Each structure stands twice: as structure tokens, then as C-alpha cells.
């Protein structure tokens, strides 16, 4: 096997396959986790029938969805209707191309393998660009269904996603300024060399940035309390009312993949990605960075997965917690919040961060 083939074809394809497979598995259990956590918060038991404590419930659900009759209503715009689920899931998956899941590396033959598919120098911008495309899937689904509730859902979501992209971008801008690079690997490395996460950056901790990013992220992924495009109590099921079976499963999948994506980004941007949780104690850093020293780079990578996964899980837990706690905003209130509160806050946040950088430089 030639090295070029290995470097440019085999390894990337293997990485992509691993990421997609892992994502699907995570989503399956994220759904179960959501049901279990919500059940716990609501004094219920949640699914218990399929598998031990319902562990196979989502698997059963997926099988059900994929074997269901695939209905395409007669009045829809066929091409767009069929494309919409694809359009919504592709950006969600493509975004993971630049996420660094862990540090460390190991070698396969002469080729070093890292825990990310690619490290591009415009990584953050790429992410913003690619996630902004997900809205087309929603709009296409809403429009092509040729039905009123999906239409309203599509309109809502177009407005919502466009509005919340701005504060999302603004909170990212300050991270960009702090790291001095738009590469996600570079951002984690900047936090590593600074010795602290950007969340605790001195003199101006990025707490506001995290808040803005997370809330906008929730709004972008259409989850409670911002799940207006599919608010089941008003719009039945919003933009995917007319979808069933596998096509519906795609929407569902995309929503959860996007949740995981927001979790990953929060971890990378604010929580130092794969860096260990050291509580600021310098001595802990070395032992916590690699649980398996005898495996060298691969051990460090595994350890990084653990820390990264932990952080992502925390963010996802917050998601689920919010769902169990909050009522839903109204459409106009959501827009007002975005434009009149979050965007000014985001602008101010960028200014203050810039000032803080100047102060730090002296």
C-alpha cells in the first residue's frame, strides 16, 4: 500500500466511518438518555421493556422507523420534499470534519493518525458556514409539504436560525481573538499553552460568551425552550408534520447530531477540548493527561476522548435538564430576545474581550 493512498484515502475514510458510526451510536443512546433523565426528573421510570432497563428501546424505535411505510403525500413538491431530509442531515454530519476530539496521535505504518479528520485554518468559519446551511433543510421541508402548519414552522425556523446565528458568531469572535487562530485544534492548543480554559481566561472570563453561545446553540438546534419550529402544541409537528418513517428519522437524527455538535463546540471553545479537568492544580496535569502512559500517543488520545466526552455530556445534560424545566417561548418573544438582547450583548462582549486583550498585553 503506497503511503499516499494510506494518507489521503484509507485513513480519512476510516476516520469518517468511525466518526459517523460513533455519532449514530451516541445519538441512539442520547435519545434513551433524554428519556431516562426526563423520566427521572418527572418521577417516572422511562422505557424499561426493550432490553435491560430499556437499553435497546431506541434501537427498536429506529428499526420501527426504518421499516415503516414511507409515505409521500400527493400534494407535495416531490423533489424538494425528498431532498429536505438529506439537506438537513448533511451539514450536521459535515460539521464534524473539523472537530478535534482528542489530542495525541499514533502511527499506522508511516502515517500519523490524529483524532480529527482535518485541521483547516478556517475551521471556525467553516463550522459557522456549514451549520447555517441546515436551515435550508427546514425551509425546504416546510415549503415542499404544501401544508399550512409545516409552512409556518419553516418560516419560524428560517427567522429563528438567521437571528441566532449572529449572537452565535459574535460569541465565537471573541474566542477567535483570544486564540489568534480559527483552527479548532489551534484553539485547544492555545488554551493548553495558556494553562487555563477560555472560560476562565483572565482578566475577562468568557462566561458571558459561553452563555451566549450555549443559548444561541439551543435556539439553533430548535430545542426547548426555543423549539418553536416544531412546537407540537401549536404547529402539530412544525416543518416535519408531513414526514413519516425514514424521512422523519432523518430530521430526528439531524436534531440530535446538532445537539452533539453544540456540545462538542462548547467543549472545544470554552472548556479546553480534550484537556483534563485539573481544578487549576498544576501537578495534576501530567497524570490526568494520559491514563495509559505505556501506550504513548494512543493512550493520550484515549484519555483525551474521556475528558472530551465528559464535557460534551455535561452540555448535553444541561440540554435535557432545560427541556424538563422550561416552558416554551413565543415566537415574537424569541425574536425580540435574539435581536434586542443577545446581539447587543454579543457586540458588547466582543468589545470587552478586545479591551481585555489590550490590557493583558500592557
Amino acid at each position, binding site marked *: 500500500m503506497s503511503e499516499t493512498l494510506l494518507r489521503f484515502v484509507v485513513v480519512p475514510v476510516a476516520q469518517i466511518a468511525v466518526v459517523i458510526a460513533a455519532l449514530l451510536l451516541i445519538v441512539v443512546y442520547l435519545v434513551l438518555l433524554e428519556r431516562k433523565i*426526563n423520566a427521572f*426528573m*418527572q*418521577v*417516572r421510570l422511562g422505557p424499561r421493556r426493550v432490553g435491560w432497563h430499556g437499553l435497546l428501546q431506541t434501537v427498536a424505535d429506529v428499526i420501527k422507523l426504518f421499516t415503516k411505510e414511507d409515505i409521500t403525500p400527493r400534494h407535495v413538491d416531490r423533489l424538494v420534499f425528498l431532498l429536505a431530509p438529506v439537506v438537513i442531515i448533511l451539514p450536521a454530519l459535515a460539521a464534524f470534519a473539523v472537530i478535534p476530539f482528542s489530542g495525541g496521535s499514533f502511527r499506522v505504518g508511516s502515517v500519523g493518525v490524529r483524532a480529527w479528520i482535518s485541521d483547516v485554518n478556517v475551521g471556525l468559519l467553516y463550522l459557522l458556514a456549514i451549520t447555517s446551511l441546515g436551515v435550508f433543510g427546514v425551509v425546504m421541508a416546510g415549503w415542499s409539504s404544501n401544508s*399550512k*402548519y409545516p409552512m*409556518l414552522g419553516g418560516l*419560524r425556523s428560517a427567522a429563528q436560525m438567521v437571528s441566532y446565528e449572529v449572537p452565535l458568531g459574535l460569541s465565537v469572535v471573541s474566542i477567535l481573538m483570544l486564540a489568534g487562530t480559527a483552527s479548532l485544534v489551534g484553539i485547544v492548543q492555545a488554551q493548553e499553552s495558556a494553562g487555563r480554559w477560555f472560560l476562565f481566561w483572565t482578566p475577562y472570563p468568557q462566561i458571558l460568551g459561553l452563555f451566549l453561545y450555549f443559548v444561541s446553540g439551543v435556539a439553533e438546534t430548535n430545542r*426547548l*425552550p426555543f*423549539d*418553536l419550529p416544531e*412546537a*407540537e*402544541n*401549536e*404547529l*402539530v409537528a412544525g416543518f416535519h408534520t408531513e414526514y413519516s418513517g425514514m424521512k422523519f428519522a432523518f430530521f430526528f437524527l439531524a436534531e440530535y447530531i446538532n445537539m452533539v455538535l453544540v456540545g462538542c463546540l462548547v467543549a472545544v471553545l470554552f472548556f479546553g477540548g480534550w484537556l483534563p479537568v485539573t481544578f487549576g492544580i498544576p501537578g495534576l496535569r501530567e497524570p490526568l493527561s494520559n491514563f495509559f502512559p505505556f501506550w504513548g500517543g494512543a493512550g493520550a488520545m484515549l484519555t483525551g476522548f474521556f475528558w472530551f466526552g465528559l464535557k460534551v455530556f455535561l452540555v448535553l445534560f444541561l440540554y435535557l435538564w432545560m*427541556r*424538563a*424545566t*422550561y*416552558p*416554551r*417561548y*413565543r*415566537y*415574537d*418573544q424569541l425574536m425580540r430576545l435574539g435581536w434586542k438582547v443577545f446581539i447587543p450583548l454579543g457586540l458588547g462582549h466582543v468589545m470587552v474581550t478586545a479591551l481585555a486583550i489590550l490590557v493583558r498585553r500592557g
Partner: protein
Amino acid sequence: MFGTTEMQINMGPQHPSTHGVLRLELKLDGERIVDTRPVIGYLHRGCEKLGEDRTYAQAIVYTDRMDYCAAFAENLVYAEAVERLLGVEVPPRAQYMRVVLAELQRIASHLIWLGTHAMDIGALTVFVYGMREREFILDLFESYCGARLTYNAVRVGGMPEEFPEGWVEEARRFCDVLPSRLDEYHQLLTANRIWLARTRGVGTIDGKTALDWGMTGPCLRGSGVAYDVRKAIPYEAYADLDFDVPIGEAGDTYDRYLCRMEEIRQSRRIVLQALDKLPGGEIRGKVPRRIKPPKGEVYHVNEGPRGELGVYLVSDGSEHAYRCRFRSPNFVNLQALPDMVRGHLVADVVAVIGTLDIVLGCVDR
């Protein structure tokens, strides 16, 4: 250049949050409501016609099926109306038992309202919590009359059974638990910013207009009119019991929410008092086996959980009512919906339906 057209949209009769088979024809400008036309009758079963065909005692069963979330209140008002027609006195013990059950029923009904209303606005957890407490009440009813939803637990002239052994203690235990659970709901909703944003200033109706529409119950009291049949024209043992009638000020969804929440507390107070005062003695008055009231008519009202429950009976001296008419508070309150949502957004329609607390079985009869 470009004109926009109003959008006609059908909400229901199959829709997750129209609380049954209510259908609304909405006319929208964007998402703003221009006009609403409620269409009802999808659950019309002709309870009034059935009430004219069956004997007075048999017809109680049909009252269960009207407001199935508060069947006891419907049983009670019908039985009382027949008692009025007959001129029968109900023994004090039965009166107190009725009060206990009626107030428990009110709590159960308000819990359903709370759960579904909160769920319509997106708060999922409150729904499950509300069901948890309601379950307690359903268990109490089950151990009293064997049914959990359609009780048929009142007889003309009194009550069918004594409270079973240990029932009173169980009811007291429920009353002990309830306040802490109520605090839980308040913590989840009352000061929640999103809840406030979704309910304050939504579906506002002032007291005068509400009366003009004939609204009663918490919907009227939320607008600041202190009209409660239990106080205004006391029936059963309510005159001897001490309780407050909470009223709102603004007449919006939030005030109605607070009113009902306080009513749950007051109902608990009534239940405890009635259990303390529960007299001994008979539970059935002197009612002939064949109920044949003299010619005449009666319009009798009760304070149901959703408003003034009325029964109009015309007797021609036979065993059947000549005319049996049920005044449904939901039917009347629902009329005001178009008024309350005009100019609001689609999401508010759902909130207002929730705050009106309609049960379609009672609207359509």
C-alpha cells in the same frame, strides 16, 4: 408591490392542544390572529335528550359523561336539582360528604388544568407532577365508589355509601401532602420568566366583558369579579365552612392561573374543615323509590371547577324529566375565545384554550 393575503388555518378537531375535538378556524395575518371561529359539536351525544328519556335516577349516569374531568360536580348538581324539585332535605352527613368529594374533585380538575395548560406552553414536567397528585384523588374516589373517572357517586336525596374505613385518614394524608406539592408547582412556574412572558397580558378580558359573555368560575374571578356560587347562593354545607374566594386583577392568563392555584389551596382548606365537622347520622334522605316530582321546574346551579354548572329540569309529574337542560360553563366560556385571542399570535391561542380550561365533553354535551 407585493400584497400579503390572510391565511386560513384549521386548528383541530385533531390537534394536540385543543383539549379534545374543538375545531378553530383561524384567519391569520402572518402569525397574528385576525379572526377565530370555534366550531363545536364533534362530541355531541345528546345528553339532554337522554336525560328526558331516562328516569331521574338513571340520568345521573349521563352527567358523568359530560365533564369527565369533574364528573362528581356534574353528578352533584343534577342530584341537587332533582332534590329541589322533590322538596327533599338531604341529611347533614351526606351534605358534608358531598362537600368533601366535590372539593377533592375540584382539586383533581384543577390539577388536570394545570398540567395540560403548562404542557401547552411547553413545560412538560408540570404535567407529570399534576398527574401524580391527581392519582391520589382518583384512588380516593376509587375506594369510595369503585370508579376512577365516571363516578355516579351521588344519589337523589343523599349518598350511596358511607366512606369506607380509613378513607377519611387517607384524605387527610392527601391534604397534608398537597401544600408541599403546590409549592413545587409554584417554583416551576410562578416566577419563571418564560411562563410570565407567555401568560402575562395574554387573553386579557375585563370583568364587565367577561360577565357580558356569561363567563363564570375562575375565568370570571380572574378578571376581578368575586362571584362564586358557593358564597353567593350557598348550597350543601358551604354556608358553614370558612374559605376565601381568590380573585385576580388584570384578567389575563397569569391571573387566572394564580386564581386556580389559590383555589386548590382553598379547596384543601374546605376539605379539612368538612372532615373535622363531619356529623354522624343518616346519609340518605326520605326519597320515594319511584321518583315522581310534582309538576314544576327548577334551575339549579353549583360552582363547578370550571364555572357555574346549571341544571334546568321541567317536570310534568312523571318519572322522566320533561325537559332536561344542562348549562355547561365550558360552552359559555368558550364563546369568549375569539375576543380573547384577537390580535395575539398562534401560540397564544393555545395558551388561552388552556386557561379557559375547556372539556369538550361538557361543551358539546
